[in-house]
Each structure stands twice: as structure tokens, then as C-alpha cells.
């Protein structure tokens, strides 16, 4: 057993700072284990969200040594324990307490996106037929665990605070899953350009890098959606065609 120092951000809406905790660590541990150990032995009221501890629920998002990570999936073996390890809440969202942030904005954004609207069933028994290849494309997006790490790292939200004009990578993935669903009939292209602010994304791919589900957010979701917006609104030939037809 070795010891390590974890520097955890403690505080609330009004401010706070890093507090150092020395603790025992064992092989195979993840950062969330250490936070739990500190909570149980040294800081009972330390606030942290977690649920599944298996990278499936997306609750324990935080910034470990400055990098947006799921604490439950960050093994100590990949961190330098000779230096204090910093653990702090996500920056993009308002702080509540310690490692817990107010992510309610995400829930409000989702409600505004037009819901799934399937076409009429294909078969008399009310069911549909879909090819696995079409399903695969959408399933990549539906792997999303809503950890909001992509939102956290996106500079449009993190640095420019454009929360009221830009829905962020998570909701482009969500919209892409709906738009590319072979059954869906709703049209979200106009909203993508306007209320969703897709033009603000300049494809730096930071979101893709931090996605714990390895969804190719930029390449497979955002760029195809941008193309759909461009095709409809900015393609000069299509514009001419529309004028004369």
C-alpha cells in the first residue's frame, strides 16, 4: 500500500479552494474510490455524485488533473501519484458544492429539441422494419451516457458561455440520433441553424477527445448535421433552384 495526496476542490456557490488529503491507495483503484475513501474517513460531508461506478450512468464527471474525466473510469495507474492529484468540478456548469455542479441547463435544452416522430408502421401488426446497418449508425449516438464531459470541454460553452445560443455537443449527438433515425419524420434542420446555434461549432474536436463512450461526435454527428444545414440554406445552386421552382 502506498500513500498519495489528493487535492480536492471544496466549496460552494460562493467560492472555495483546494484542500489536500493524504490517503492510502492500492493497485486497481480508480479516482472515485479515493474520493469515497476520503469521504468515509476524513471528510464525511464531501459532496460527490456517483451511481453505477462502471462508466455507464455518467454521474461522476469531474476534472482530474485538469482533464474532464469520469472518476469511476480513471485508474490511478494512469496518473502520476508523486505529485498531488487535483480533482475539481466541471467548469462549464455552476457549482453547487464540492464536486457537484448544477447540470439542469442540459435538461432544459433537451426538452426544446423536437421529439421523435415515427412514420407509420411498416407492417399491419404495428411494427417497423429496419436494417442493422441503419440502426448501427444511430446506436453509436445512443451510447451516450449524458456525462456532459463534452459540454464541459467545449469552448463555446466553457469560455464563451453561450449557453443561451448553443446547445453543445451532447445535444448535437442527440439531434443526430433523431435526424438519422430511419423512422423519424420530424425536421430539425431549421432549429439547428437558429436556436441550436450549430454554426458556432468550429470543429476543434475537443468533445470527441473526452467522450468516454468514444462517440465520434464531431465527425459522425456535428459535421453531417452542419452539411444538412448548408445543403438547405447555403447551397447557391439549391437557392437558385428554389427561386425558379
Amino acid at each position, binding site marked *: 500500500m502506498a500513500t498519495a495526496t489528493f487535492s480536492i476542490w471544496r466549496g460552494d456557490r460562493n467560492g472555495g479552494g483546494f484542500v489536500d488529503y493524504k490517503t492510502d491507495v492500492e493497485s486497481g483503484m480508480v479516482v472515485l474510490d479515493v474520493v469515497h475513501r476520503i469521504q468515509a474517513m476524513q471528510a464525511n460531508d464531501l459532496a460527490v455524485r456517483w*451511481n*453505477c461506478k462502471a462508466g455507464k450512468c*455518467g454521474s461522476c464527471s469531474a476534472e482530474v488533473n485538469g482533464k474532464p474525466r469520469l472518476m469511476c*473510469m480513471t485508474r490511478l495507474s494512469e496518473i502520476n501519484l508523486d505529485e498531488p492529484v487535483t480533482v475539481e468540478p466541471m467548469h462549464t456548469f455552476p457549482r453547487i458544492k464540492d464536486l457537484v455542479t448544477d447540470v439542469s441547463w442540459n435538461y432544459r435544452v433537451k*426538452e426544446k429539441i423536437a421529439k421523435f416522430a*415515427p412514420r407509420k408502421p411498416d407492417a399491419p401488426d404495428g411494427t417497423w422494419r*429496419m436494417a442493422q446497418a441503419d440502426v448501427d449508425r444511430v446506436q453509436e449516438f445512443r*451510447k451516450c451516457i449524458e456525462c456532459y464531459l463534452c459540454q464541459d470541454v467545449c469552448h463555446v460553452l466553457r469560455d464563451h458561455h453561450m449557453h443561451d445560443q448553443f446547445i453543445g455537443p451532447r445535444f448535437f449527438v442527440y439531434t443526430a440520433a433523431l435526424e438519422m*433515425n430511419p423512422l423519424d419524420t420530424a425536421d430539425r434542420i431549421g432549429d439547428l441553424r437558429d436556436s441550436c446555434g450549430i454554426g458556432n461549432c468550429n470543429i476543434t474536436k475537443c468533445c470527441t477527445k473526452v467522450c468516454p463512450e468514444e462517440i465520434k461526435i464531431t465527425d459522425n454527428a456535428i459535421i453531417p448535421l452542419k452539411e444538412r444545414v448548408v445543403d438547405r440554406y447555403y447551397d447557391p445552386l439549391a437557392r437558385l433552384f428554389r427561386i425558379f421552382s
Partner: protein
Amino acid sequence: MAEYQKVECDVLVVGAGGAGLRAAIEASAAGVNVAVVSKSLLGKAHTVMAEGGMAAAMGNVDDRDNWRVHFADTMRGGQYLNNWRMAELHAKEAPDRVRELEAWGAMFDRTQDGRILQRNFGGHRYPRLAHVGDRTGLEMIRTLQDHGIHQGIDFHMETTILTLLTDGGRCVGAFTYDRERGRFKLFHAKAVILATGGIGRAYQITSNSWEYTGDGHSLAFHAGAALLDMEFVQFHPTGMIWPPSVKGLLVTEGVRGEGGVLRNSEGKRFMFDDIPPNYKTQTADNEEEGWRYTQGDKSARRPPELLTRDHVARCIRREVKEGRGSPHGGVYLDIAWIKEKLPNAAEHIKKKLPSMYHQFKQLADIDITQEPMEIGPTTHYMMGGVQVEAETQMSTLPGLFAAGESAAGLHGANRLGGNSLSDLIVFGKRAGEFAAKFAKDNAAGQVNNDQVEDAARSALEPFERGAKLRGAENPYAVQHELQEMMQDLVGIVRTQGEMERALEGIEKLKVRAAQAGIGGNREYNNGWHTALDLNNLLTVSEIVTRAALMRQESRGAHFRDDFPEKSDRWAGCNLRVTKALDGSVRVEEVPVKEIPAELKQVIEEQK
């Protein structure tokens, strides 16, 4: 006088996993006003962890399947202690509930002709589980969540129930606190649906998340409703056992459904050694036949790895106990071996079991396409729960409903894999429908102020003690000790002596829990939350232990070392738990409901 905010609603749903969300959607569609409280954020409930799929006899892969086979499989798996009517409704209604999810946006894996694909699972005679790789639970919860947010439901996230409110033998709401600010909120409701999940956190090694502290079971018990079958705790045979920090984490049964095999340290497939008589005719007697079954050969019988969970878990325990275990005290689960059979085995495994691949790679440095996994049993599921009426899901306390894991009846002595997700949507819908009806048919009840004041006072006590610090108990320490004790004394194999010791231990821990103290303030204070959860954990631990003590036989998930056989004496009874007038736990035998002749015949036909 406690300060609190008051919320008026027709139906209050407690829990936002699959059952809670499905219930809320149904109640809301019936035109009543619905509030949902959940301990976590929306979309994070333990349902996301369900991997393998949801069982529904749609017959898309094997057209011999139908509700009668599913019904008989469920009853056999539950050792006939199931509520037959629930098993019947479940088998008949699950296909519609699954198709409904597709209409709401779920994207299931497909068959060649574009229909919903179904996979094999333990105890199911035909491929029956609609699935999405090995993340079916996430697909279910996201579908219900994304549908539900457009239904006008009032969500109260990160809110925990302190007590149910009753008025003259009827449930009239709940008193709660919000985790973020620690403020009290009173929900005045005409009907309340418990969809709180299980009790896994009473054990040290569990696949369950922190939320599974038996809240619904304990709240219902204290409010005067009856519980049933609480001795039946399912230990899933395959949990991770290394590294220590992930001990208990689930490894889906889907691994075995896709051809994964269990081997001991001698490399032997030990599951062939012990096949229970009532499954003999349905089980392969050689490795080749077992493999053909997993690859869809309809003439083959299933491999013994896909026997029911209780049996597989005990066989693993036997191998370990007799010295044929793996280095970390489990056995090997091997899917990598299929490379002998399939040309693109590694890619195939990654496609079929993506999150298992990910989980082992990331948490244990193991590539499951190349090497076997080390696994062992983990506390997984509570078959018992609130006693409910099959059609309506109403408990013995009028106005209080329960659905999903927190309700009893469907699974009897042992649940089949895949029957949980379908349980959530079948009975979540029913609970929502009938709670809405109850709310329309009944006027609001009265809130008893004494109940509110009592709950508020005792909720704040840990802070008063915390201020003194000296002599106050650390709530985390009490919780850990309880978990360790339940694991050791009321676990997968039980004896009278050990369980009696557990009861003594629980009494001591109750005293200590009453001394739990906590510093800091009410805002997002995990220590406070843990102190409050102890009440529920201790209540359900005692109930499980007392019920397990009474059942002097081994059946389904309940195994007694001192009574290792099934006994006719206990074959026809469920154990019912109620709170006696003096507050103690009363356990009594009640006869299992007689199965009607036509359903008995269905069971006979399927034998």
C-alpha cells in the same frame, strides 16, 4: 414547526428508473397530474446497468415461442412460488410493451429481415431477449426519459423520501428532502407509486449502485403495507472480482448467451457436473451441442452455463470452496475461446458485448477477446418486495402502489435474466394506469402533521449529534459494517446460527445508527444522506434475515446449508412480512395462490 414546501399532485411516483418512468408516462397519459421524485438525476437510475435485454415472447427469431412458453419458463424459474397471475400478465403483455418502446424511439438490434432481434438467456427456452448490444437498460431508460419529458410530468430530481404519509389506512403522500439544498418538501398525493428498485447496498459485494438501499421496501413496511418473499435475494453468478475496487460489478449473462463458458482452475467446464433434474431434458449434455445452441441451432439444447442464476452461482461457489477457484477467489468465464469456432471472433465479441469489452479493458487491463475473465457471484436482485395485487399493482395499503424490483410476485424464488426489464415496463404501465384511476376515484386524504414533524425532527438529529462529534458514530462506518455482516452471515449460503448472529449484530448496529452524527450543513451533504439511508438498510436487512430464518429449506435463490433440500413442507407457501403493533417484524406463512387448471396445463405442456 418544520419548514417545508408543499406540492399537490394526483399521483406521486417514487423513483425514475424503468418502472417509475413507465408508470409516470402512463398516469400522465390518463390525464392526471403526476410528480416524480428520484434520488439521482434523471436518466442515471440503476436501470442503466441492465445489460442483456428484455424478455418478450415475440417469436421473431424462433416462431415456436409464445406467451405460454414464457409463462411456463418464468414459473419454473421461480420454483412455482410466483404470483401466477403476474407471470401470466407479464408473458402476455411484454411483447406490446417492447414494441411500444420502439414507437418511442428505442433502437433494438435487428434480425436479417429487419425485425427486433432476440437473444438467448438463462432459463428461457427460446431466444427471447430484445436487446441493444449489452446496454439494453440504457436504451430503455433513455427512451422513457426522452419520451417522458414531453408528457407534462413534474420531475423533482435528487429528492429522497423520508417517510410515507398515511391517513386512516390510506397512503396520502410523502415527506422528502432535496439533496441539493437539504430542504424539506411535502408531496400531497392521492396515490403513490413506489418504484425504488432493490436492496443490494445491504451487501458488501453487489452489482447495485448506491441508491439501492431498500427505500421502497422499508417505507412500505413502516407505513403498514405487507411485503412478500423477502428471503429471496438473487446472487448473480458473474460479477467482476478483480481489481478490488470493482468487486461485484456485473458481467452480463449475455457473455454466456453468446457462447462464453465457465471453467475452473483445472480448465474443466464444471457446469456439466451438476444439472438439476427438472432441467435435464432441456440442457445439452456435450460441449458441441451447447455451442450450436448459442449459435442459433434450433435442434440443440442450451449449455449448462445458461441454467438459472441461483444454480450457476452455487456451482461457482462449490468450485471455489473445493479448491478449484481462480487466483482471486472466483472461476473463469471465457468468451475468447470462440476464436476456435469463428473467423472474426475478436470483432464479433466487440460488436456483441461492447460494454463488457470496454469495462474489462479499462478497469482490469484484460482483453476479453484474448483471455478469460475472473468472475464470482455478486448480490444482484431482490425477488421479494411489496405485496401487490396482480392487475393493479396496489399494495395492501390503499393508495400505495409498487412496481418493478420493489414489488414482489412475478419472480417467485428466483428471477430469470431478462424478466426484470420486461417487468418494469409491463407492471410500471399497470401501476401508472391504476394509480391514476385510484386518484380519479378518491378525494385527497388528510396530512397528519405529527408524522411530518416526527420525520423532520429525526432527519435533522444527525446534525445535532454531529456538533458534539465525540461519541457520535461515523455513518459510513456503520454502513460498511452492516454490509460486511450481511455478506458473511446472510449471503449466498445461510445457516440458522449465522443468521441469529446477524440479528444480534443488526440490533447493535441499530443502536449505533441512532448515534450517527455528521458535520457540515444541509447542502449536498453525502454524510447526512448516508446517515438517513441507514434506517432503510437496517430495516430491510432485518426483514431479509428473519424471512430467511423462517424458511427451513433450500429453494431458488434461498440456500440453507442446514436444510440443503427442497421441502414439500415449504413448497406451497410464501412468507409475508408486516410490522406488528409493537413495531417488530412479523413473518408469517401464507399459502401460494392456487394456479387455475388451464394454466397448470400450460405448465405441464411445456415440461
